[in-house]
């Protein structure tokens, strides 16, 4: 494994140069990989592995759109396409790629079909990390492993086909066979990963849950609303408030941050922006740090999971959710955004 330095901290990374496809094929030569769930991640990983020459079968509930999609994608019922239980019985590495809620519901069936020495594979650690709540408790005689691609199913497939690959993290939760790690890395290469970063089930889930509740979505939407409100209260028009809060961020700034980093952004803006941003950054950090601390502990102690699982199982969940989303969508800021977007130059002629 290669050592790479990230901001002065050394990490271990598996690269496809040191771990070529041939090696992965050799390690998995006697395995049948059963992909359970032909929804979003399932097709991408299954198609990539099949195109790489691995023995792959698909397990999917018969009838329905996903079954039909699998047939269109060249999976043959009775040969490479089975119902979920049959595929699980036939597979030696079982990729459990249904939604978090689906994993919980389907688990008793899956569990009954797993054989000693199988590897149970996840692309998200949720069900295992919160196994007391989800009930997904694999028996001790199977490997429990994870490869989490850093991108949607679309990128996993598209990057594979254009020859670039995608980066993934990988983890072993339970090693019953003594081969868990090599099976994990080989499967990571099989699905088309370029670089593989080691992690643990816990870290994968905790960072994921923290990220989406924090900077990626929760915090972002929250501070946008706060700034928008202040601008509006002080007489700015909706379009101006939206432009300064969202539009400039999404249309130019964040792309530059993506290419060059926030440090570059700070070094390459006007003096007025630079001075102010440098002075206000610590104040925002100070204000939000305790919220992030609270968020992280709520993730760690399982409270977040409990909320999700309880909400999901409530009878009126859909209605309540729709009402919440309607409120967000109907808010002045996001309604203003709709108009601002329609005025972008590329939409003038539409």
């Amino acid at each position, binding site marked *: 494994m290669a050592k790479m330095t990230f901001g002065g901290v050394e990490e271990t990374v598996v690269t496809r140069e040191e771990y070529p496809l041939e090696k992965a094929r050799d390690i998995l030569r006697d395995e049948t990989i059963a992909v359970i769930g032909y929804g*979003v991640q399932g097709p991408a990983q299954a198609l990539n592995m099949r*195109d790489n020459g691995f023995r792959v079968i698909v397990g999917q509930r018969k009838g329905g759109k996903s079954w039909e999609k699998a047939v269109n*994608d*060249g999976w043959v019922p009775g040969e490479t396409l089975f119902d979920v239980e049959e595929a699980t019985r036939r597979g030696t590495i079982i990729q459990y790629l249904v939604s978090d809620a689906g994993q919980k519901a389907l688990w008793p069936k899956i569990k009954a079909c797993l054989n000693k020495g199988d590897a149970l594979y996840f692309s998200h650690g949720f069900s295992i990390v919160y196994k007391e709540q989800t009930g997904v408790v694999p028996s001790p005689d199977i490997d429990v492993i994870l490869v989490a691609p850093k991108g949607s199913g679309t990128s996993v497939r598209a990057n594979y086909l254009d020859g670039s690959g995608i980066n993934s993290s990988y983890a072993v939760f339970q090693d019953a066979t003594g081969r868990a790690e090599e099976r994990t890395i080989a499967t990571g290469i099989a699905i088309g990963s370029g670089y593989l970063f080691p992690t643990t089930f816990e870290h994968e889930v905790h960072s994921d849950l923290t990220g989406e509740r924090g900077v990626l979505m929760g915090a972002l939407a929250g501070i946008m609303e706060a700034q928008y409100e202040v601008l509006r209260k002080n007489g700015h028009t909706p379009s101006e408030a939206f432009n300064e809060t969202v539009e400039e961020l999404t249309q130019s700034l964040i792309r530059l941050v993506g290419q060059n980093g926030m440090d570059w952004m700070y070094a390459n803006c006007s003096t007025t922006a630079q001075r102010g941003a440098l002075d206000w950054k610590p104040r925002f950090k100070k204000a939000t740090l305790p919220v992030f601390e609270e968020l992280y502990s709520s993730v760690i102690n399982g409270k977040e999971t409990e909320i999700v699982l309880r909400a999901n199982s409530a009878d009126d969940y859909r209605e309540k959710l729709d009402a919440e989303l309607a409120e967000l969508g109907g808010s002045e800021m996001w309604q203003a955004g709709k108009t601002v977007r329609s005025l972008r130059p590329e939409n003038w002629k539409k």
Partner: protein
Amino acid sequence: MPDGARLEHDSRETLLTLDDVTMRVRDRKLLAHTNWTVRRGEQWAVLGPNGSGKSTLVRTVAGEIPSASGHVRIRSGERISLVSFERQQELYTRELELDHARHFADKTDDILTPRKLLGGDGKSDRKGHAPHGLEIAHLLDRPFRHLSAGEMRKALIVRALAAAPTLLVLDEPFDGLDRRSRESLSGYLERIISDGCHVILVTHRADEILPGVTHVLALRDGEVVGTGRREEMLDATKLESLYGAPLERRRRPGGSVGRSPAESAQEPLVELAGVTVRYGEHVIIRDLDWRLLRGERWGIFGPNGSGKTTILNLIVGDNLQGYSNDVRVFGSKRGTGESIWALKRRIGIVTPTLQLGYRHSITGLEVVLSGFFDSIGLYRRPSEAEVAAARRWIETLGIGDLADRHFTRLSYGQRRLVLIARAMVKGPELLVLDEPCQGLDPRNRHSVLDAIDTACETSQASLLYVTHHDDEHPHCLTHVLRLGAAGESATVEEYSL
């Protein structure tokens, strides 16, 4: 009056005037100080070699790109519709980008179809019907991105017509269309011209200039080199000097015309046994038996939607139903442990879809080098020998000036030449060329066909070749697979001109 303005005017006689206009694409200025007037009753064809600025000119007319200086004047009340390859690429790219949002939202069914593109069934043009032969009713609910290049083009043409334009700007509208569709489209265009619609037509083929075209504008190296009436402009000598090449490809002396390499053993490279490709009720290929022996050069001909591209994709590993059929490539049955990369390594490919796939900015040389890795984009470091080989092919095709330019900024035809070098660079055993001459001017068309013949003469490479034009057949073809309309049976014959 600000420079670079786009103005309306009320003249009865003048539709469009370009007054000392200089165009700008990104940071490059093009077509400096262009003057052009289109008067009522005039129908124009815009001609010129690849990269001469034809698309830039008509996109400026259609208001897609701003002029940097001078004035564009359009008669008030004109409704301009544009059909162009850029539009097609834009829609295709947007579709791929939207996939991320769809997957995030778990709404993967919400994809663009011709029906959504048209906001209806595409029958609401000025006469109430899509042109005969351009019917796209059977395509309405298919994913836009799964349409063949010709089918996409049809959908865009029908959309442009549905807007009931008064000035229709067509940038290579016939590209990718089969003969019947081309004839229907040109018949239809003749009718709307006689109904009073004006047309500006960009084309690389003299035989595509509609009878109703009255005037011609000729471009070369980013400059207008001539405007005038059809009779004086469409003179063969003038056209040959415009393109710097004869209009007809000369038969090359000697050459192994239509001859397979003598020593070719009966080794099958590709075998299809009872192959059927279907999507639900829609059958694209039904029960096809066919094989290609090493050294054979096949033309695959047939109308749009007859399955030509599907056959190619089954062979190169891009059609997933290759796994549910009896498809053998290089002796091994698909789905028996081979990887698609092992197949791709031995096959050189040029297709319109591949060309759409290069969206990131890399140079012409890097695109050629990506042929060694069969990647779309360059993600590995090539060796010095590979760079040298790439440069040799760039030299052979006479495109040295494109090597260091950004691929996405090259003209459509220039990009095609670079992709041909990409296919050739690794010395493939099988060349798969899907309409390789599409979008090329006569000179480039001849160099591509010459290059294919050269490759066939100097190597054992087998060939699979798709085109809709009889004058785009390389001399080296030995066999023909002729496909009927979707799902009908195919015929096989020896090639003869």
